[in-house]
């Protein structure tokens, strides 16, 4: 299958390993990956911080860059959620009904990685080998906006060598929330502290998630604590052999 990759601005800039792993994984499974160079950012940061007008050109860009493709994947439950639910809303609010309907259409063809693998490509065992103790943080937007459900866990359970450890209070927010972690830094840090305590309590070597943004936040905290726990994007585990 020919699959367009939306790398997301964060993975492109700061966490290229997550996007590279997505490419390696899909190619290993026999698919063709295309990376349209004109892509940049889904605009979620602007929408969520209260700058819908500034997000509009980014939404337009996403729609025009990816409209030619039937299937698009992003290694981020959060960006996919935004594309699916916010793009058409913001466009409609700006009075651009045409853009709104094209955005809604495209949103339905944009998948988070675990959704693409299980729902579209129909694989649960991607043939990965990752001999580590791993705990998985489901991330709020994957869970409640994109609704990936237990798909990431189903994929992880099929990874050879991997010991999956249950994370206490897994579904509680890690406190990132984009600019929330800047505007309400102390509250965010208190939420992060509890998340880290839960992660460390599992005895895992690695905390994984499907969103680079939450991993940046959690990873930054774990490093500051010298906890010894690493953060690794789901795509990197699934791409490992």
């Amino acid at each position, binding site marked *: 299958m020919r699959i367009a990759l939306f790398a997301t601005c964060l993975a*492109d800039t700061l966490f290229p390993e997550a996007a590279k792993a997505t490419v390696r994984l899909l190619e290993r499974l026999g698919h063709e990956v295309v990376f349209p160079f004109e892509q940049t950012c889904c605009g979620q940061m602007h929408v969520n911080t209260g700058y819908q007008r500034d997000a509009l050109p980014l939404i337009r860009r996403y729609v025009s860059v990816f409209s030619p493709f039937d299937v698009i994947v992003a290694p981020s439950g959060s960006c996919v959620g935004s594309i699916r639910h916010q793009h058409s*809303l913001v466009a409609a609010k700006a009075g651009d009904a045409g853009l709104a309907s094209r955005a809604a259409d495209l949103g339905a063809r944009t998948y988070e990685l675990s959704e693409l693998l299980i729902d579209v490509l129909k694989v649960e065992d991607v043939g990965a080998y990752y001999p580590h103790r791993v705990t998985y943080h489901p991330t709020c937007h994957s869970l409640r906006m994109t609704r990936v459900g237990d798909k990431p866990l189903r994929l992880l359970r099929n990874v050879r060598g991997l010991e999956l450890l249950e994370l206490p209070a897994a579904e509680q927010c890690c406190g990132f929330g984009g600019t929330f972690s800047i505007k309400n830094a*102390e509250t965010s*840090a208190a*939420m*992060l502290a509890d998340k880290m305590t839960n992660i460390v309590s599992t005895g895992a070597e690695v905390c994984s998630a499907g969103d680079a943004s939450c991993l940046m936040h959690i990873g930054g905290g774990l490093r500051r604590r010298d906890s010894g726990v690493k953060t690794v994007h789901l795509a990197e585990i699934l791409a490992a052999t």
Partner: protein
Amino acid sequence: MTTFLGMPATAPRGVGHLRGDESFPAAAHKALADDQLRRNLRHATTTIRGKSGRVIAELPDWQELRSAGSAIKADVMSRLPELLEELEARVTERGGVVHWAADANEANAIVVDLVRRTGSERVIKVKSMATQEIALNEALEAAGIQPVETDLAELIVQLGNDKPSHILVPAIHRNRSEIREIFLAAMPGVDPDLTDDPPVLAAAARKYLRETFLSTKVAISGANFGIAETGTLAVVESEGNGRMCLTLPETLITVMGIEKIVPTWQDLEVFLQLLPRASTGERMNPYTTMWTGVTPGDGPQNFHLVLLDNGRSAVLADPAGRSALHCIRCSACLNVCPVYERTGGHAYGSVYPGPIGAILSPQLTGIEDNASLPFASSLCGACFDACPVKIDIPAILVHLRNQAPHPRSERAAMRAAAYTMDRPKLYASAQRAAKLARIAGRRGRGLPLGGWTDARDLPEFPQQTFRDWWASR
């Protein structure tokens, strides 16, 4: 627009409890430093969450019930004026008197006048968010009338000269030894040997309240629901103190927000299932008291209903934010909110704390007066999933953020980011330039990150961006 009730005015300044003295981050700062408070809150919210989750799981049709509740409320909002007139007509037919209050000032004046006319210098009160919202107690006191809260938790808050911190459990921030101190200091006729044993504390409150119930001729209540087709008012509660307030006095004055209406008795059935399970995790709330006007020889012989707007028309006029008025004040959203769990209710600076407060208060007062509240959320979405009437709180938060005033420096940064991100070549070179930010180090010296790096290290910039890697493949 059919639902337009006149000039949509926001709640007036200088009266009521809808605006805080400081921004959310500043108010949260204190709460976050209070370990005892955070332990109290975590324990209480975790317990309620667990209980509520268990009894909700018993119902096979919970999602359908939520949809029904949401649909009924949407219908109510779309024809609120006619339903209110219907309610008014039925209440009047049954011997009640209906008053319309545009805002807190009018409502307080109406109630003070009504109480004065009875000659009573004391009133008993059933727990009521609406009267908290308009600061009725303060208005009564200013007029020389003593209001006595009869809900146990509200009484604790009142005697402690404090403010409620939760919709349903207003004294959630207090533990029992603090409550003992409050009773000893402020409860008339209290036993000086009082212990902090909960049954002992409850008994002390009961004794005090019984005397007050039996000797007070005027009661003031809120209403959980008003049924348009019959003019019936309903209050649900769990202690029975409310029922005594609603049945013992000669005069009953009910202050009800105009959004609390349901069209028919059949609609009420939906909410009486949703409310207790979502709020306290009970299958049915212990006391449901309903009354229709005046019944000669039974219950209060004078009944007044004050219909309160106080900013609600302004909320109604905004199609994107209107569903905040669907709220049935169950507080499920507070109990699942990770921000509320850490900061407590006082940080929200309003009688409506937590996720619902973060959207409702700014809408009632105008966004400028509560500008930090829509940002007091990580948009994790737990509130939306918990809300028994399916209010999409995250979507309204985002909607309000778009209306909120922005700091100038942030506006400039966001503009610049959007400009760059709309130009792939410029974006790619900015990505490379961003690597220069490595000199800021993991603690982010010199970067405009607020307190981010107080608790977290910045990630290291990779040697190569993804797009450079792709180009070089």
